[in-house]
């Protein structure tokens, strides 16, 4: 298990917050809350060691060419594949947008 931190440039914080997923096998839990303006911070607690570069690439690909909202994101990962991570994050962004 290891804890990883990431930071990306962002726009304005949203109003609401959202929770998606579950710390089940091959899945992850994502808690999204309003962050400081201009900053997106992500804390990842993952059961898979040595996966820092994979997370970095996944986030870079996802935020490439767009300005994400300013969020403070907490991830509790239980061995989710990059595809599942991306689906959960997109689900979380969508739910935050609805609030």
């Amino acid at each position: 298990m290891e804890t990883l931190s990431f930071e990306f440039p962002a726009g304005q914080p949203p109003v609401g917050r959202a929770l998606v997923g579950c710390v089940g096998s091959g899945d992850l839990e994502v808690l999204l809350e309003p962050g400081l303006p201009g900053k997106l911070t992500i804390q990842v607690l993952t059961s898979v060691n040595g996966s820092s570069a994979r997370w970095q690439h996944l986030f870079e690909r996802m935020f490439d060419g767009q300005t994400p909202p300013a969020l403070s994101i907490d991830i509790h990962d239980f061995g989710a594949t990059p595809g599942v991570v991306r689906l959960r994050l997109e689900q979380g962004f969508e739910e935050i947008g609805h609030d």
Partner: protein
Amino acid sequence: MTDSARLLKQHSFVELGARQRARALLDEGSFRELIDPFARITSPWLAKQGVVPQADDGVVVAKGSIGGQPVVICAIEGAFQGGSMGEVGGAKMAGALELAADDNRNGIPTAAVLLLETGGVRLQEANLGLAAIAEIHAAIVDLRRYQPVIGVVAGSVGCFGGMSIAAGLCSYLVVTREARLGLNGPQVIEQEAGIEEYDSRDRPFIWSLTGGEQRFASGLADAYVADDIKAIQQQVEDLLHKGKPEQERSGQYALFLQRLAELDTSTQIDPAAVRSLYQGEQP
């Protein structure tokens, strides 16, 4: 109706997560979660042992109403650590039941609904989890003096260990075909009894002895319902309206003990024999 049409019409309860289940049973718009995941009251023990924790510790506690009656609902997330009960999740459930009993002493008729998907105590938290389960037992016995405590075992984890005793203490127990209920899980029994007597990988065999249908037919559950959100919601609401049972099932332990004493252990027991043993002499 064709099978596919029937399947499309059905909305599975088993497939829902704990929070969705709690929402699905409460009156629309009445769901108010207590100690929600953003409160970050999580297990202090799992990370120390290299296990990723979950923000709500796998237990969702909410207040709301069912058919207009105030209830507290506790839903265990079976997908997180097998629904195991740790210090925090256990305390959330015990505390919710204790507050519901306090409500009743203050003139508010709060009942409780427990959605039980659990393998029992969380081994990483050992005695703290067991202590929490004992508190849950005591709180159920206290609250059921005022209002029904309704247990629902929908599946697919089932309800085992100390939490199967909690299920046994409930005023009413609702099960589906997917449910299983037992003090020990199949693998533990296999380890103790031997694979010739109890093969934990033989699913039809396991369900024939511990499955929801068998438990209902043996009188250990009060309702056997389809895995359908509406059907389960309606069943829980009906039981709430019924009020407290005339006699709690756990109050009839003398009768159950007497029937178990009649068991002939010289031959291998089968599901039909279990049913007739529990039902006693039929008139």
